[in-house]
């Protein structure tokens, strides 16, 4: 029987959620960090959305947040001109890295030893976390504010997206731009999928998929509305996208067909990411909430429970919370 998606709403933030990131799968499950304009990034259990803690310390809107693979470290980028590194187990601030302008993006290498930052001063910086006092390696070239900077290709190269409507692939050692992609519209988001070497880029209403080494175009898909963020499923069978019209779209990656669209958010969607196991995806919105959505609707996973019709009406179902059957406009 057809089931209707029940998104799980994670409240707590008081302002728009602008970025979110998942950790890898750890012995304690996987985790999710959300960046918010209220300056208080939060750590949550990835499969349930349960709040674990809030990283307190930034004095301005947090524009970017990331976790390392093991979810032992977190990094945040903020409007207070700093990037901070945190202990993701205790919640303590470990490092503050001063910048000359708003920092927008932070990204750890696979071994968590280096942190890449990018922001409004147009310069990419690489910090050696074992020598935080040392000056970072700087890579300049973009002519506008950097929106997102990611390690890729075994942490040997860097992908950066900026308001100058370009995406550049840099070699970390030579600090040269190896490839550049130019667009007519501002790039709104970028995601790197190491397994398969794919970069997901959104601009205007388009979701583009590119080869991470050559930046050759694989395919593009156009959505009904302006898209702010998209994420490709780890198995590469679907991708999800969200943007201006508050809806979340789910597409078949192979056929490019729109499979589903979900309403739920009360504001534009700024960020969307698949979990590392692909079982759910999380979206962050202008409405200040994070929502978790099932990839396979109706499956028992996390807080979602597959319930047969007989169970629903029996007395044994007191543990189950059945959302009211609302008529979705």
């Amino acid at each position: 029987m057809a089931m209707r998606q029940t998104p799980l709403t994670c409240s707590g933030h008081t302002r728009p959620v602008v970025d979110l990131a998942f950790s890898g799968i750890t012995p304690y499950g996987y985790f999710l960090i959300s960046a918010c304009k209220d300056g208080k990034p939060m750590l949550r259990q990835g499969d349930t959305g349960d709040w674990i803690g809030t990283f307190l310390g930034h004095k301005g809107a947090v524009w970017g947040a990331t976790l390392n693979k093991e979810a032992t470290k977190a990094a945040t980028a903020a409007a207070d001109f700093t990037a901070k590194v945190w202990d993701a187990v205790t919640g303590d601030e470990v490092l503050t890295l001063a910048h000359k302008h708003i920092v927008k993006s932070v990204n750890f290498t696979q071994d968590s030893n280096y942190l890449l930052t990018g922001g409004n001063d147009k310069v990419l910086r690489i910090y050696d976390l074992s020598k935080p006092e040392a000056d970072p390696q700087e890579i300049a070239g973009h002519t506008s504010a950097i929106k997102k900077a990611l390690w890729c290709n075994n942490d040997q190269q860097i992908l950066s997206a900026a308001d100058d409507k370009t995406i550049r692939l840099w070699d970390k050692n030579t600090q040269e731009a190896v490839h550049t992609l130019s667009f007519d519209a501002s790039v709104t988001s970028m995601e790197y999928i190491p397994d398969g070497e794919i970069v997901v880029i959104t601009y205007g209403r388009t979701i583009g998929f590119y080869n991470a080494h050559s930046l050759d175009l694989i395919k593009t898909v156009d959505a009904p509305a302006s898209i702010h963020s998209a994420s490709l499923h780890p198995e590469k069978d679907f991708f999800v996208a969200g943007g201006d019209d508050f809806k979340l779209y789910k597409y078949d990656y192979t056929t490019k067909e729109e499979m589903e669209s979900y309403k739920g958010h009360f504001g534009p969607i700024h960020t969307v990411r698949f979990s590392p196991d692909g079982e759910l995806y999380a979206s962050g919105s202008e409405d200040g909430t994070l929502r978790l959505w099932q990839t396979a609707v109706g499956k028992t996973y996390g807080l979602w429970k597959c319930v047969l019709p007989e169970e629903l009406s029996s007395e044994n179902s007191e543990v189950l919370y059945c959302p009211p059957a609302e008529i979705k406009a």
Partner: protein
Amino acid sequence: MTFILKTHTGYADAALILNEISMKTPVSVLRLPRGPDPNSRGFDPNSPRFIALCPTTLSSSSSSGAVDEEEQRLRSDLRERFLRTLLLMTDKQVEFNMHEKVRVRARFGASDIDVLNFQVSGLETPLGVQKEALLRCQDVISCSFEL
């Protein structure tokens, strides 16, 4: 007012679609995600992850942990010695070496909690003996007394 719904073959399809929508059961959830605790910043120290990943202050297998412990132990020893010295100094004649080549003698009374001032009596100064005085500790270089 009367509405006459005129449909052709579409009516049966519409009914089917309406039926489907109302039949689609929303997925049940066990509970809603837990929100933030208004009183704390979280990171529960009793969670299994915290206990497993954060070494407690008592046990430490890493070498840097051992060095920190040793340093702390030394600091504690020095602090204890200092406090005991102050206790021993009470009511004794003490000679204070201060900046600007000042050397004065006095009977030591007590120190304040932050060791900013020493209360002394009978302070011998070139201008005479001051019955009660406070010596500013930051001006004191050293002091000596007989046990």
